[in-house]
């Protein structure tokens, strides 16, 4: 009886706080993405015109982001039948976008406006109950350059 109650409380807490924080996080992601849209991010290995650029310093951003209890349970149930784990998709999406934003911000602070050779690194930090994904770290790095006039 008590076990069931504890699980129910954890579920409510997870659902309440988790969805509230996700909503707030997405809101701030949209805002900051609009602010930093001038900083361009490219995946290509080289600058197309090296003679017109300066710099090339390493910039990076990272974030450790965790899923909530409710989502973990939903994903656990979903794993029985297979298919898309929607609750984890939003976790990775939030993590990657947050990491890119932090990288862009550090490039802006250093006075650069383009980032080349961007690479992602994802690792799972801790496993949750029943070996589900608990939290993931997303690390993104690249070389920042600016146009030389």
């Amino acid at each position, binding site marked *: 009886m008590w076990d069931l109650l504890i699980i129910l409380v*954890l579920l409510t*807490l*997870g659902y309440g*706080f*988790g969805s509230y*924080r*996700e909503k707030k*996080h997405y809101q701030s992601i949209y805002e900051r993405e609009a602010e930093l849209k001038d900083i361009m991010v490219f995946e290509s*290995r*080289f*600058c197309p015109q*090296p*003679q*017109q*650029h*300066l*710099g*090339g*310093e*390493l910039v*990076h951003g*990272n*974030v*450790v*982001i*965790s*899923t*909530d*209890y409710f*989502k*973990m349970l939903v994903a656990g149930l979903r794993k029985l039948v297979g298919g898309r784990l929607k609750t984890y998709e939003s976790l990775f999406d939030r993590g990657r976008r*947050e990491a890119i934003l932090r990288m862009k911000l550090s490039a802006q602070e250093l006075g650069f406006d383009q980032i*080349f*050779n961007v*690479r992602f*690194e994802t*690792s*799972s*930090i*801790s*496993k*949750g109950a029943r070996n589900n994904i*608990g*939290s993931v*770290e997303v*690390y993104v*790095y*690249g*070389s920042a*350059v600016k146009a*030389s006039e």
Partner: protein
Amino acid sequence: MFISNMEIIPQQKINKHLGLVQGSTVRAKHVGKDILAGFKNILGGELVAYTELMTEAREEATERMVQQAESIGANAVLNVRFATSSVAQGAAELFVYGTAVVLESQSNT
């Protein structure tokens, strides 16, 4: 020390290649922070303590790589890559490697 993950740096010339340099660190987190993080796992959201820990650890690994590069007379490390592997529950190894080179700025004509 100039660090970049590009192979060709705009307006700079590579004078000399000095080979691979690397740095790594294995970090575990604080028990108190771990318990807090376990609590956060229920509520969801960013684990700020871990984010800081990983940043610190990567800085340390980079510092070690830079020391190695300095000791063989390089002034830049290019084509830098990062790798992460979890050693045990609650501990992670952060590895960074790159090519040590001597860079020289190319005068624009």
